[in-house]
């Protein structure tokens, strides 16, 4: 096996693994965003109140009250079919970066810290929440990377170097 073949060392077996990893990451994101958007909509009044009292976003609260769960649901919808998964991962990346940056900004630059999360996520303190978000951010980036490799491996006519040399 030469150096070139190492770069393209995607066996059918590892291809399956990558696919399963992507499935797992997408499933976790679907669960997270599905739960987060539903709890926001179920506790709509509380969410609207909390957004309205957040120092950075109070002016945009009426729009964000609908927009945040709507974009979360859009991400969930796109993450389900394989062909729109990448778009779903990009939207998830945008949301998770936005939430992480918002929490970081609140922790460091806000004179008080409200909470706009729904359901059990409300039980987390802000630092734990930031760590959770960063964990998911890493997962999403992994998903985008794996999806790239997976797409390449799935391209019609692509034959792995090992298979070709066999």
């Amino acid at each position, binding site marked *: 096996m030469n150096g070139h073949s190492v*770069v*393209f060392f995607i066996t059918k077996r590892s291809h399956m693994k990558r696919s399963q990893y992507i499935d797992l990451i997408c499933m976790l994101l679907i669960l997270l965003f599905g739960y987060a958007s539903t709890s926001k909509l179920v506790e709509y009044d*509380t969410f609207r*109140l*909390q957004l309205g*009292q*957040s*120092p*950075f*976003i*109070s*002016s*945009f609260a009426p729009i964000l009250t609908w927009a945040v769960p709507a974009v979360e649901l859009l991400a969930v919808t796109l993450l389900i079919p394989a062909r729109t998964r990448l778009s779903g991962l*990009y939207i998830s*990346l*945008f*949301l998770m*970066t*936005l939430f992480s*940056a*918002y929490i970081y*900004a609140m922790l460091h*630059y806000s*004179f*008080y*810290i*409200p*909470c706009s999360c729904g359901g059990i996520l409300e039980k987390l303190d802000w630092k734990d929440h930031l760590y959770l978000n960063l964990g998911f951010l890493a997962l999403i*980036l992994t998903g*985008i*990377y794996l*999806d*790239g*490799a997976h*797409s*390449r491996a799935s391209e019609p006519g692509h034959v792995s170097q090992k298979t070709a040399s066999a």
Partner: protein
Amino acid sequence: MKRKLLYNRWMTSIIIMGLAVTVVVVLALVAAGPSKNGFTRKFITAPLTVQASIEKNENITGIAGSNKEYLFFGTNRPDKLFVTDHNLANGHMINTPFKYNKKTASNFSFIIDSTHIELFAGNARTVLSGTLNRSGCDSFNLTERIFTRAVKIDSGYYAIRRYDQTRNQQFIKTSPRKGAVIITSSVTPQYNDAGISTDGMLHYDPVNKILVYISYYSNRVYLMDNNLIPIELGHTVDTIVSIPRFVGEESEGEMRTTLTNVKPKRVINANSSISKGIVYVLSKLQSDMEKPQEYTSSSVIDCYVLPTFKYVGSFYIPDYQDQKLRHFKVMDKNVISIFKNMIVKYPFPG
């Protein structure tokens, strides 16, 4: 080919992340503009002007109630009341029907209605009931555990906030005859901190038959019906939504566990009063539109109308002889205020 694909993906990811961070930075910069505390007030009347005042000593701690002739002020002793007429004249001390008792004196509050006087003794777990100018009283055990807040509600029942079997507090509806008929731990969040983070002021509004629990350390206001069923999670006009945690350290002693504050408490709502379906709250936060000089030389009272706890406006009670307002009570069309060593009466146009 693959490298190019991955390069494109990473570039797209970096652009998306940069866009998200830019959105937050822009929002933070906009928020850091002239608006600071994130809320405004609507002033419904000019600062109140003094109608009458009387000197008091340090032993007078609060406003116990009134009848047609007198205003009654609580002291730091359960057996003593300070009494004045409605013009704050002829101030003198009187004896209550209750005897001094160290346990009772450690935590108590009075309610006076006409000639009837009741004393809630949280650490003694009892309510004492008697008549002014008569000796002797009835004593009822309200609960088997220490309570921190108590109000009388309809038909011989009391609503109290007491410690539960864990490290939290719960609300109960109880009567001396029947004991606890309703117990609920679901009104305020439970943090295993002896209920300190969610400590507040409990009122009963007989007009709407609503219990109002106002947090000291956040803007949360819990509205319950007279069966302790939550009917609304309200909030004061400010923006302190989260409930801060103060208690973090604990040490086990031989007899008990001690919980210690890990950071200073920040009081949001310091005192409150209820009258004719309106809740008055002494807030410790300055709104964005208030001038610092006006705010620092006064105390601001926010008004909320029940049953919705909708904010209707605010007014100032100016500092009296450089003293800040400590306690107040709205009675009919007057505001009775307690400062460090003065009691002051203001006519209230609202």
